[in-house]
């Protein structure tokens, strides 16, 4: 009961923010149609451009959606609402879980919308392939949720919003979200392959080919998540001791 209502308002608060739907739904969709429709018969990175770019834009929107809880945390700290939460019976664990589930649920419309947009430009995948892609997103987005928490706990509201935007755009750019890759070989490519955003963008091609991510991708996402979670825990503890 508690968590259901909490989760509902958590999501409602986000959806009512016009900036949120603009960044997670509007922008990726507009970019997808305006760029992919002209190149719908071209190939890129060893696959059809629409498939590549659909995955890239879904990743872009979903990254914005999953860092959004961090922005809300920073605002709740700034307004003092977090202190108010701490004097209610609401457990930190419940609050934390609601934010994680909320982040995924908020990323879902982006995926559905972009998958539909992709299909409208001729992207054809089987049901299991769509599901596999969605599943890979679920895993690959985890580090971004944690980055959101960290910046939300550490930075004041305005700075957190700016930093989160910076993180999303930087990871997107390096990961090849914008339809070009900064490197396809050499040391720069090794750096790029070490980013979770690169593997999100690859999720479409991976699903088409079947067989899932290579081990490298799982390791990258696991290491990012494993390293960031203790940082988030420290950031939370720092905040709890001062707030």
């Amino acid at each position, binding site marked *: 009961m508690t968590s259901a209502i909490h989760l509902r308002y958590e999501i409602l608060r986000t959806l009512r*923010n016009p900036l949120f739907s603009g960044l997670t739904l509007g922008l990726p969709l507009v970019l997808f149609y305006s760029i992919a429709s002209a190149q719908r018969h071209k190939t890129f990175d060893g696959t059809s451009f629409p498939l590549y770019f659909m995955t890239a834009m879904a990743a872009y929107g979903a990254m914005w959606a999953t860092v959004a809880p961090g922005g809300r945390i920073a605002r709740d700290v700034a*307004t003092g609402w977090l*202190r*108010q939460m701490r*004097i*209610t*019976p609401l457990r930190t664990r419940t609050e934390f879980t609601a934010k994680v589930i909320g982040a995924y649920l908020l990323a879902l419309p982006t995926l559905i919308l972009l998958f539909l947009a992709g299909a409208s430009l001729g992207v054809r995948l089987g049901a299991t392939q769509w599901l596999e892609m969605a599943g890979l997103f679920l895993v690959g987005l985890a580090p971004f949720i944690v980055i959101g928490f960290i910046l939300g706990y550490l930075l004041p509201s305005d700075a957190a919003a700016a930093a989160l935007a910076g993180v999303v755009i930087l990871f997107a750019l390096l990961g090849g979200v914008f339809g070009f890759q900064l490197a396809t070989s050499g040391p720069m490519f090794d750096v790029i392959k070490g980013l979770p955003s690169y593997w999100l963008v690859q999720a479409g091609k991976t699903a088409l080919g079947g067989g899932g991510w290579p081990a490298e991708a799982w390791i990258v996402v696991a290491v990012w998540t494993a390293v960031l979670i203790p940082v988030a825990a420290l950031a939370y503890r720092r905040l709890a001791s001062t707030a």
Partner: protein
Amino acid sequence: MTSAPEAGGGIVLSGLAKSYGAVRAVRDVDLVIAPGETVALLGPNGAGKTTTIDMILGLIKPDKGTVSVFGAPPSVAVRSGWVGGMLQTGSPLDHLRVREIVTLMASYYPQPLPVDEVLQTTGAAEFARQWTTKLSGGQAQRVRFAAALVGNPDLLLLDEPTAALDVEGRRAFWQAMRGATAQGKTVVFATHYLEEADAYADRIVLLAHGQIVADGPATEIKARVGSRTIRATLPDVTVTALSALPGVRGAERHGDAVVLTCTDTDVALAAMLQKFPGAKDIEVTGGTLEEAFIELTAIDDSTDDPGAREAAK
């Protein structure tokens, strides 16, 4: 959820102390509040009111001493839903309506009050559909009060609930507060408005520089200080000589007139007339709570630190 707290525990603060660097925000506070009491923590800025309340809520860990809320540590009391708080900071969540935020708060507690009832008693019903970011100061204050009340806690802690409200707003707030807490809640509120403490609390705990300087009903506090003044026209007598009279705490001169602050006006008046028969236009006035307040909280003023309040936040 844990059942309602055992009666008899009340709130017990013992040897409570908290410092922020060199600023001793709260020093050695002992206080027992019985269940059902309405207690005002009265004091100027930097007296330690907010720090004390934050320690009762478990938001701040004391350096020394213990807090017991209905026989349990603050964390247990908070988690069990026995405590509702209205903090000084804490503007309502954005992108929610008034009714939604009260509903959200209610969902956290094991035995909340009906949301509509709380909106009515706090006077928030008329703007229940308003966005929380579009409220006036008085409206926001009512929403925060409704949010603290809706969980139906046994203990309500209100940190300067009427700060930034005009006189009419304060009156309306306390009226709502009285109606809402008639059914035997323990209420502790911080204020620096004497009239509020006097009018709405069973008991006043006066804090200054992190210490309790007086504790009791308003009348008792006045009696303890016994601050009454004698005014007289009396030229050619030094302030020092007047101060030395029995029953006199201090003396001031304003031209020909003198003002004596007394611990006992009867003794002081007799002594003054005996020693200085020339005194004319004599007036004896009873001390107001305001005077008692100034007198009590002025003690040890030299160690006051204007940073204390900021740090206490």
